[in-house]
């Protein structure tokens, strides 16, 4: 590996040292989330998977042993709504249906927010297109393997998604003029909530025609005819995948009326909404959401930041949960993603969730929503070793993440981070000094 000196590279090298090895985390309070809490428990990591859990776990002689006495081990935190590490724009907001664009193409693995997320125990993010249009871009689930390439961060086995958006954001583009400039801006359909609904219905009608066109072509080819092949359409292909159940819909929404609208359009068109994102008025239609089988990924106690977020309540999580909706709490933010454990804790205050129920909001529940709960989201034998070691109970305001493992690799270590800071400062100072000593060498200044 021929890497230069930069923080990213150094961290990559450090990360590379934490090779796939056998690790025993000993004597921790193990918060499995799904199987209760084990006091003075140990977890054995082998080949990137959780190999054993219990009070008495023996490890091979060459295993790295982490003494976690007095510390808390929980599953890696999962964020079902993130815009971290997107390069060159979160929205392709120029069109009302931008399903041809794909977040997978623009993941920036050098975004420092990945590392900052890790430092808060975050291990998986559902990276979404923005909410500027009714049907936004394709989305991707990434593991925060800091130091690796974008390709290596993409989580294998996680179904890709597509972003939908309802309400104020997608219809905002319909106003004349731009909020930011006096220059006239091309009005973009739609300008109303009705229009948002129509865009979704229209696009899926097109997608069905497209599906039929290809079906007919393939049948004609099979009959030995020589038809002209139809054009492949990157906008419609992901929608066909939605119809075929190969791609999840993550829909940004606030109001209960439009939540119902979306569920009805989906039923009519024959596809499923996998998650309702934000869904601040989800509590009003929790029964209907549960009946459709959609999950809800909401905020803990953030509301009133826009008109359609006025009629919200921090009890939203608890109410939806008790109606049988799989609920998660998300960040939608580079900052919030660093302490999602504390966001989850708020639901204990508002709605009396148990510790396990609260932790589930940022672990097994988002895993279920993303269809990856067979791999991650709890501490169970056979699951990927995505683990976070906290110094105190993670639902405490005073807790700090000490170590983070993804697939058994240690990607964050608080002590090492603190230790390395003066070294990075020194290196940076050297670079600055060098530049000051030799200013602008490529431009003659005689």
């Amino acid at each position: 590996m021929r890497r230069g000196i930069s923080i990213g590279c150094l961290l990559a090298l450090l990360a590379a040292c934490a090779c796939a090895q056998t690790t025993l985390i000993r004597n921790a309070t193990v918060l499995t989330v799904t199987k209760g809490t084990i006091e003075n428990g140990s977890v054995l990591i082998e080949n990137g998977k959780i190999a054993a859990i219990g009070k008495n776990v023996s490890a091979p002689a060459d295993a790295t042993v982490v003494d976690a006495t007095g510390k808390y081990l929980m599953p890696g935190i999962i964020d079902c709504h993130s815009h971290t590490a997107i390069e060159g724009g979160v929205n392709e907001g120029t069109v009302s249906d931008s399903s041809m664009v794909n977040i997978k193409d623009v993941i920036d693995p050098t975004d420092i927010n990945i590392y900052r997320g890790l430092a808060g125990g975050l291990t998986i993010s559902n990276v979404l297109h923005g909410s500027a249009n009714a049907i936004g871009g394709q989305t991707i689930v990434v593991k925060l393997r800091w130091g690796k390439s974008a390709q290596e961060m993409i989580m294998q086995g996680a179904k890709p998604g597509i972003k939908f958006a309802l309400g104020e954001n997608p219809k905002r583009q319909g106003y004349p003029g731009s909020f930011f400039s006096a220059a006239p801006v091309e009005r973009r359909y739609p300008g109303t909530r009705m229009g948002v609904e129509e865009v979704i219905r229209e696009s899926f009608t097109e997608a069905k025609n497209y599906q039929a066109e290809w079906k007919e072509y393939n049948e004609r080819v099979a009959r030995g005819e020589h038809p002209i092949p139809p054009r492949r359409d990157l906008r419609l292909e992901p929608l066909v995948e939605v119809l075929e159940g190969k791609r999840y819909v993550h829909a940004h929404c606030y109001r209960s009326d439009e939540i119902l609208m979306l569920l009805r359009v989906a039923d009519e068109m024959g596809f499923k909404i996998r998650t309702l994102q934000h869904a601040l008025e989800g509590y009003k239609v929790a029964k209907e959401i549960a009946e459709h089988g959609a999950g809800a990924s909401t905020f803990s106690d953030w509301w009133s930041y826009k008109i359609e977020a006025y009629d919200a309540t921090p009890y939203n999580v608890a109410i939806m949960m008790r109606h049988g909706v799989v609920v998660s709490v998300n960040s939608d933010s580079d900052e919030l993603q660093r302490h999602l454990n504390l966001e989850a804790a708020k639901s204990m205050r508002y709605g009396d969730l148990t510790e396990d129920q609260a932790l589930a909001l940022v672990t097994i529940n988002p895993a279920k929503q993303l269809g990856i709960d067979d791999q991650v989201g709890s501490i169970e034998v056979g699951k990927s070793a995505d683990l976070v070691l906290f110094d105190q109970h993670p639902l405490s305001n005073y807790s700090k993440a000490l170590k983070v493992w993804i697939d058994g690799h240690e990607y964050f270590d608080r002590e090492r981070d603190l230790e390395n800071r003066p070294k990075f400062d020194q290196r940076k100072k050297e670079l600055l000094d060098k530049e000051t000593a030799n200013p602008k060498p490529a431009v003659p200044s005689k």
Partner: protein
Amino acid sequence: MCKNEEICRACDWTMDSMKQGLRTSGLVLIVAVMAVAEVPSAIAIKDAHVVTVSGADLPKATVLLRDGLIQDVGPNLAIPADAWVIDGTGLTVYPGFIDGLSTWGIPGAAATPARTAAGVAPTPAPKPAATPSASEEPPRHGPEDRPQNHSFERAADMVTPSDQRLAAARAAGFTTAATFPNQGIFEGLGAMIDLAGARGRDMVVAQPIGQQILFRVSGFGRSGFPNSLMGNIAYVRQLFLDLNQYKEAQQMYEAHPAGNRRLEYDHDLEGLAESPRLLLPADEEQQIDRILSLGRELKHPFVLYGLHEAYKRVDELKQAKVPALISLKWPEKPKDADPSDIPNYRDLSMRQQAPAVPGMLAKAGVSFAFYSDGLDTAPDLKKAVKKAVDAGLSRADAIRALTLSAAQIYGVSDRLGSIEKGKIANLVVMKGDAFEDKTTVEYLFVDGTEFEPSKDLQKPPANKEREQKPAAAEGDTN
């Protein structure tokens, strides 16, 4: 400079005519060109140090030029009676330098900004009287509207010897450029041009040599697809799918016209189909990864340009066997930076390490060339290459990158890029080693026509505040 007074006089006369011809236009130009025809058709540069690039260096040899071609090169050549003789004692002859990705010759085209080579560049602001810009077009609603698509336009049709930057480029030793129109996302078909000629069409050595793609966003207050990096990528991907379908449908129609509807002629796709290679932007490490994977997906030969952070991706580039065009506009501390701003670590590293990229790629055996990227004065270009040499690139490899490698990348090394019998007589004759401060370009030959670049153009401007760049009157960057 010439020992032979007669030749000297003849040279002066020719040069005067040429200069006059370049300065004025129309009729005078034609007269000047006709006058050139009277010049003896052979020139011998004797007793010079000849850097052939393709073969061994010849410490004392003669290069014989005739009819715009290199007739012969070697020690102890018999000099024909009709040849002008230039005494090359103390001089070094190199193949003329090639700008690997240029706008030289197209006066209206500003160069591609380096730092945005693989991020997203703003769409240039509309120029009132110039070519219709993207903003004047109706907003585009998706790839099917082919926004900012100039794939079918040809640099060969746009180049003109009246571009004032050509004189400065020649003063830096450049005789040739891979020129692309700087417009839109699909920029058009490039041409390999010689940096002199009576008319634009006389300058074209080969075309089309490729299609440059630059990711652009329409920006705040503007509208129209695409307005994000992912939108640009989806657009490029869709167009190549369309191209495949177009070709397949054409074949199918040709074989079975009866019963099938005839196909629409699509010049956007014709332009793509005609591109022998794509030039794709990639400056930073993650961009290099991304574009390598996109390029493979498109199943079309491609070249990367930018590469300032390629010091982190040397092995990947080597494995990919994809040629690289390295921007000579090294990242630098911004001139008007806020003194209280502390640059981030990555930018600092890039500023320090980018010039080491050429040396590292040379050691790894990656094929690369340089491109001017908006630098258009001789001192700037020289300093920029020197910076790479100071950072570990051998002088020979620097020369190779500026000559034979550039020709190879564009598939024209059979006619350009080295001093070999039969190749086009594009040469630069220097006093001193290339890229050194005191070195001057004494003669320059483009298609065998001799130039004596002005020494003024080769000197850095005297003022501390840089004077009006003589060559950048039009098409200045940014």
